[in-house]
């Protein structure tokens, strides 16, 4: 092998590991340089992405636990009211629910970020994180918070290299999504349930009726996107078709927290959506809509654009989008084939880094290099929050933004700088006899992507700690 070819292999390895993966562990670039594309292709498997917390309770178990705690809170509140002015009551249940969320969702999140720091399959993990963000469920809705981990492991990760339609259906029928986007309580205005409530009269407190939130976001965010030009009428029709898609509550102990089609809540009748008629068919009416949405060319375009933007550039080459779109359409929406197309596309391998890491990616890539986060697990959440990316708490159903302009701002950079210094101090502090020179670490982190300017700044550092902080804050490490 000539020196030239060997250097190229090393550059491709660095791009595979840092751009398509989650950053290099020491030695990883060297190992991958034997065949960078094979390293990526081998991670595309029909089983999808591995679970990051194999012992995680199911969504049904989490829902049941949460519902029970809320019920006991209500009961205790009633008792306390009865004994008004009486003795001081048990621990504040609101705080208890908060603690439960922090404990369960917190452990899920920590498992995920530690898995990302340790995995040998960085590409599969990035690909899975992309789809979790595509189907965002956010802890800003407390009822959904403890279900996010189960949602990712049950509905997203098994399907990330399978058919998109399967992931779409799994997401749309999952309790986390049904609760997050208010679908669980949506009731057809002419359904038997609505008639029953109307006859019984008000009084029960919570009013019930149609909620179009999930229908709107499926169209706008999950499938065809706004470019498809659907109307308010399409949204409402889809919402009507989706009525009845709900989950079982505590009155059905053997199925509590699982998907349930409530025929009584389903709006009867034919629906017309994006120019197609859907006959009344209970659950299968909306199921058929999802099938058509998954096959819609607008969905292919929307997904191809998002994938290219996430993996390659904020302004992705049109030629790449076209290849990904074609791969999707010609395989019936097989995401494994889309991933293979991405790996093989020439545009994916542009040596110029065009993506600025999100805070999550920045922390994970630092930890992969340093051999751990080096902090108490409890500190990671607040750190990410300060950097603008609170764990499991994307600001809206649109998920976290993917463009440099959303992350590379003055305040965010200053905070990353502080974190880098502290991280470097801890990393070297933990290995007091560590002989690793920061320049050696820089080579391990970036391979040929390391620029002469950054290498010089690192070599001139006064301390190893300062050198590592410079590496983490170098333009090429902040990007991928």
């Amino acid at each position, binding site marked *: 092998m000539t020196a030239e070819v060997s250097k190229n292999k090393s550059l491709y390895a660095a791009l595979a590991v840092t751009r398509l993966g989650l950053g290099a562990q020491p030695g990883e670039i060297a190992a991958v340089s034997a065949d960078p594309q094979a390293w990526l292709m081998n991670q595309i498997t029909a089983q999808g992405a591995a679970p990051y917390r194999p012992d995680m309770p199911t969504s049904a178990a989490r829902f049941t636990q949460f519902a029970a705690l809320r019920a006991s809170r209500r009961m205790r509140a009633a008792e306390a009211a009865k004994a008004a002015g009486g003795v001081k009551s048990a621990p504040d249940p609101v705080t208890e629910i*908060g603690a439960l969320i922090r404990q369960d969702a917190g452990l899920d999140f920590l498992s995920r970020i530690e898995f990302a720091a340790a995995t040998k399959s960085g590409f599969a993990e990035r690909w899975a994180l992309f789809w979790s963000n595509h189907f965002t469920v956010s802890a800003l809705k407390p009822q959904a918070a403890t279900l996010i981990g189960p949602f990712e492991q049950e509905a997203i990760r098994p399907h990330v290299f399978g058919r998109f339609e399967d992931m779409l259906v799994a997401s749309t029928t999952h309790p986390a999504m049904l609760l997050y986007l208010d679908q669980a309580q949506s009731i057809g205005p002419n359904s038997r349930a609505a008639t029953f409530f109307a006859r019984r009269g008000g009084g029960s407190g919570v009013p019930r009726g149609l909620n179009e939130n999930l229908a709107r976001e499926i169209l706008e965010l999950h499938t065809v996107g*706004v470019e498809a030009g659907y109307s308010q009428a399409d949204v409402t029709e889809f919402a009507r078709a989706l009525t009845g898609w709900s989950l079982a509550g505590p009155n059905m102990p053997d199925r509590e927290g699982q998907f349930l089609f409530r025929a009584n809540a389903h709006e009867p009748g034919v629906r017309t959506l994006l120019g197609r008629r859907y006959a009344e068919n209970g659950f299968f009416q909306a199921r058929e809509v999802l099938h058509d949405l998954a096959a819609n060319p607008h969905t292919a375009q929307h997904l191809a654009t998002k994938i290219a933007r996430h993996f390659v550039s904020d302004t992705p080459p049109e030629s790449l989008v076209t290849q990904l779109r074609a791969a999707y359409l010609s395989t019936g929406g097989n995401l494994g084939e889309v991933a293979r197309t991405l790996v093989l596309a020439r545009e994916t391998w542009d040596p110029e880094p065009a993506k600025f890491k999100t805070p999550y990616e920045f922390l994970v890539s630092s930890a992969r290099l340093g051999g751990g986060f080096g902090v108490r697990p409890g500190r990671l959440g607040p750190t990410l*929050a300060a950097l603008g990316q609170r764990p499991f708490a994307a600001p809206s159903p649109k998920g976290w933004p993917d463009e440099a302009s959303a992350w*590379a701002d003055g305040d*965010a950079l200053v905070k990353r700088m502080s974190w880098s210094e502290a991280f470097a101090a801890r990393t070297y502090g933990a290995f007091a006899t560590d002989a690793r020179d920061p320049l050696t670490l820089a080579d391990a982190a970036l391979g040929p992507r390391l620029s002469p300017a950054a290498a010089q700044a690192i070599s001139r550092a006064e301390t190893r700690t300062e050198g590592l902080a410079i590496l983490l804050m170098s333009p090429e490490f902040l990007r991928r």
Partner: protein
Amino acid sequence: MTPWRITRRHALASALAFGVSVEFLGRQALADPSSQANKLVVIVCRGGQDGLSVSPPVGDPAYAALRKSIAIPGFGAPGGALKLDDTFGLHPALTHVHDLAMQGQARIAPAIATPDRERSHFEAQDVLENGAATPYASATGWLNRALTALGPQSGVKAIAVAATAPLILKGPTPVESWTPGGGPEPDHRLPGILQDLYAKDPLLGPALAEGLTTDAMARSASASVAREMAASETTDSMALGSASDAGDMTGANAAAAFARRGAPEARKIGLTLAALMSARGGPQVAAVSVENFDTHANQGAATGQLATRLTYLDALIEGLHEGLGQDWARTLVVSATEFGRTARVNGTGGTDHGTASTALVLGGALRRGGLIGDWPTLQASALFENRDTRPTLDMRSLFKGVLRDHLGVDRRALDTVVFPESASAPPLNGIVA
């Protein structure tokens, strides 16, 4: 009353300690020789704020029937609206805004909307911030283009209270950003080394320089605020990430607890931003976001989810008012949202995406007066597409009136560059005293 005003020398000293070039800060500080300039704060309320709860038209005959369980009770009732006139009140959580209104320093625009009619958060926020008539028509924001139109010689600077600048402030004119939280220790060489390393990086170079300058100023300012606050009350820590808020936002009871905890932080953000703006060489224009107004379910009435968010907004405004001190007389604050919500309560005790909403305009520079824009009423025939408050005022007209009369932006620039092709939405008269 500006105990936390920081001097230019002070700011320079702390900036120097960070390795920020003297030239960078010096030029800006000199460009604005006084803090006598008019100030503008734009609060972007994200998620689609329910105007019919912000300024409930409790005197409108159709209001109670449309709103049912989420109607704000009438004047004088428990949890009732705070009276503005015979028709309108303010949400009971907006006590500070109401105090200002009673002094002629707060008014409402109850049926205002951007040109967007699509009811998508992302498109509507885009239009609210990009200043164009359609989403994605511009990658820069109208507030930034307004600064550009004023020209560099004006010395007007802007700041975003966010880890990253929102679209409204993106654009050719450099903008600082700031969030509460700690920065680097000032005795490190790293900031200077990185500035050298970023010298040719068009993204990271300017961003780091702004971040360091702002951080230096905020440290001085918030140290003063912290002393002030410590003297008056006990509150929780200022660290932005210290509270896992999601954990405690469970139901209406928790909402009240969250409101109690969130409000002091909001007031503190207002105080610190005010201190930054009052400092010599500080920004005259600021943009702040308040989120989570997307109340599809269980939005509540006098208390509940929406009330919690309005408590936060009220505390933010209170902090600004208090912190700006005598500068308040030269200040306008505009609080606006991407769209309003359906006039009818939905099936889940909330409201869905709608059209017109309420904008609040506040400040010592505000001209005393009544409603801004007309009230279309809520009678069935007046509703937009039989579901939403009908817009009677173009959001761009309000912003253009403010920019022209308060900051002195040229009319032609307003019609063509700041709000492209917006001659049909002329600047609103009578906003500025």
